[in-house]
């Protein structure tokens, strides 16, 4: 009987750990674009990253139109 109880507990631990690992993996997959150290950044990628650092002089904070 004791063995059966331990088996059930073990089974529950395995199920919950699988769910946890799967959730973490999904978060990782859906998260920020990830570039590994082995990938080389193209000139376009570097320039686009630089581009993102600047603000546009014509930027507006949109609050909607009065009419």
């Amino acid at each position, binding site marked *: 009987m004791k063995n059966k109880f331990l088996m059930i507990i073990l089974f529950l631990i395995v199920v919950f750990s699988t769910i946890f690992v799967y959730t973490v993996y999904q978060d990782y997959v859906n998260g920020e674009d990830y570039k590994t150290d082995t990938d080389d950044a193209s*000139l376009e990628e570097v320039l686009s990253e630089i581009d993102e650092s600047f603000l546009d*002089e014509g930027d507006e*904070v949109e609050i909607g139109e009065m*009419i």
Partner: protein
Amino acid sequence: MKKIWNIIIVLVLLGSLTPLALAEADEDVSYEVEIDENTKKEVAVMNNRLGSSIRLLQLEKSITRNIAKGEYIISYLKENNSVNTSELELILIELELLKDEVSSADPNASDAVTVFVDLKLDAINLTKEFRDTLHLLLGNESKIESVKANISYLKNDSVENLGQRIRKNVREYNAYKLEKIFSYINVSDSTIVDSYKNDSLNLSQVKQQIGEQIKNMTMEKRNQIFSEIKQSRIRGRIQAQMAVENITEGFHDRQVKRLENRINKAIENIPDENVRQNVEDRINEKIKPGSGKPGE
């Protein structure tokens, strides 16, 4: 054995109820305030004084422009229609009070992001209120179109002045970013930054020059620059995300406090007793419990 089974069943049931409890807690937060993607992007640059100052000035500019448009619409309606514009006038007075709050907000304050988002949401709500009231008053689509046609050419000195201040601050902000990028690529020559600062080079020319320098670099160096710039941008995004998450907490209480302060400002600044009382009543209506989300 039966006892053990009962304990296991209770544990499983408790486990399955946890996500439900968490989901309800999330719903409470999202009821209070929803922050759109544009706002999240805007606050991403507010981790320094210049970025905060730019966003607050941009918000002030948008409100000032809407006030100018609102004033024009009201005078147009008074000349061409027999509609009662008093409700529109009260909304404009509240927008004026809001503009003062934005212009006196401190970009150096630790809660600058919260203040910006709160005031921006107020500006969006008041603009929508004006628009909805106007559409109710005019009703007819052709009348709305004729007002719209006249308004598109509207020029305003205050808006122009704010635009110039924003451009100056954006240049300073970009120059600071340029210095950082040059430090990554080990360029100590400050000529490009100075030329950009004093307007003899524009941003696309500067980007072109940086592109030329990066083109001639080794792949290793290029990767290093890429990862440094990306890391710095992601750090900014994480900070912004954290700031935005804090905003949802206590949003309602902050808004009630803000509206109460707005009433005090109205009492101080509006000389006409009738108008002052009407503005006070309008704002009090939003504070009243059970009136829905304040500001809506």
